[in-house]
């Protein structure tokens, strides 16, 4: 077990996979970190020495915004749009798709589970 970037404790997985448990680090960044620190991406986290873990930690600190900081940045960006009163902000406020997708059907990711509409006729089979 190794604590990297605050509270994250990636498991006994290969380094390239374990790093992806950190919010803000995906496959690309994980590979880049391995390359920069000169560590074997396939090596398991519990087989890393303290010094190696430290190197990974420092590399992330130096190059990436992760976890809380990143979440805050994203939230601030959305908040900026909402406070501005621009179209994208309005869509965020209403919980509807922001980038011009259709809402006649679908858009369930943003709208959440479908709500039953009272009074809607149920299609009868012929």
């Amino acid at each position, binding site marked *: 077990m190794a604590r990297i970037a605050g509270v994250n404790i990636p498991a006994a997985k290969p380094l390239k996979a374990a790093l992806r448990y950190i919010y803000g680090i995906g496959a690309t960044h994980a590979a880049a970190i391995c390359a920069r620190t000169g560590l074997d991406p396939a090596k398991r986290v519990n087989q890393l020495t303290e010094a190696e873990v430290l190197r990974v930690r420092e590399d992330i600190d130096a190059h990436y915004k992760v976890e809380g900081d990143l979440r805050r940045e994203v939230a601030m960006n959305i908040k*900026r749009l909402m*406070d*501005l*009163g*621009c*179209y*994208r902000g*309005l869509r965020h406020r209403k919980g509807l798709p922001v980038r011009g997708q259709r809402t006649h059907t679908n858009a369930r990711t943003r709208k959440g589970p479908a709500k039953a*509409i*009272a*009074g809607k006729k149920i299609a009868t089979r012929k």
Partner: protein
Amino acid sequence: MTRSVWKGPFVDGYMLRKAEKARASGRNDIIKTWSRRSTILPQFVGLTFGVHNGNKFLPVAVTENMIGHKFGEFAPTRLFRGHTAASKKVEKK
């Protein structure tokens, strides 16, 4: 696809002239415009524009945060009044 940087921000030419005029004169009169496609430039900060939404001119007070957005983003063209309430027929069921 983002706009090429070498083109610079798109603004209808007359917007610049009008903004300059408003700045030179005694401010706070709304500049009416149909140019929803124009980018908001730093020169526009502090001025109030009346952005046409297809029906009327909605006042938009330009702040620093708005730079880089388009005027049209601040004047919604659609009005959503909510869905009709459930009919009584169904409630009786």
